């Protein structure tokens, strides 16, 4: 669905790419059994590449707002997909994906799972923590 090429699991050695600088991150809380939160972080080039692929545009044409929207949608899909597999017979509720501003870390500190994927133009990191965060009560819950 996202047409970015993946080059396999990335090494965890280069922690610099997981820092808030030069990356875009989205935090998404979820409620269910268990509750928790997910943090998706992409290097800036990877985010632009994915947004361009998603929208069928050239990378140079993509605005920051479009990149943010696509990254939020990507976070929503990854989290929903993971939870649907884990809790296929249960119900869960996703919060509204929130862009983590530059220099800010994702709030949850106890990550149970961390997965890094190397893309042709950067890196994607997903961290999921369960049982540490309550889902906020957004006006419109995401499914």
């Amino acid at each position, binding site marked *: *669905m*996202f047409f970015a090429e993946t080059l396999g699991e990335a090494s965890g050695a280069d922690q610099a790419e997981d820092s808030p600088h030069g990356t875009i991150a989205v935090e998404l809380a979820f409620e269910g059994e268990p509750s928790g939160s997910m943090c998706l972080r992409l290097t800036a080039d990877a985010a632009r590449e994915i*947004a361009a692929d*998603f*929208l*069928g545009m050239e990378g140079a044409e993509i605005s920051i707002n*479009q990149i943010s*929207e*696509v990254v939020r*949608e990507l976070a*929503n*899909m990854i*989290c*929903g*997909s993971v*939870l*649907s*597999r884990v*809790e*296929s*017979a*249960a*119900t*869960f509720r*996703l919060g509204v994906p929130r862009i983590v501003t530059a220099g800010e870390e994702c709030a949850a500190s106890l990550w149970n799972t961390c997965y890094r994927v190397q893309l042709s133009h950067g890196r994607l990191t997903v961290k999921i923590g369960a049982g540490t965060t309550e889902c906020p009560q957004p*006006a*419109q*819950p*995401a*499914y």
Partner: protein
Amino acid sequence: MAYRVLIVDDSPAMRTFVRRVIDMSGFEMSSCFEASNGGEALDLLRHEWVDAILTDINMPEMDGQEFLRRLSEDEILRSIPAIVISTDATTHRIAVMTSLGARGYVTKPFLPETLRAELERTLGVPCG
């Protein structure tokens, strides 16, 4: 035959993407309409006929559940097949949306051929 399709999603990026995937899939679409929530979709359906509806669940003002409920209460609009596109693939959510009248359900992420197959199934397009 080419079909008229309505995409209901509050995300402009997602609407663009769904439209793009339909084009990529080879599904024959003559017109594509867009609405950002259920209420906007109902307004559009008062003056535009469509052959199929693709709807998200979570949307501001009127979400997908309420939208399907309103469609099912309308003697004319209830005949339009609605397909839900959602990240939520839990059996509970699928059962709820199906009970409200959804004829199809596509979970994100999905492939172009998956969306095409679901559109053709709900529209009764002959195979091949």
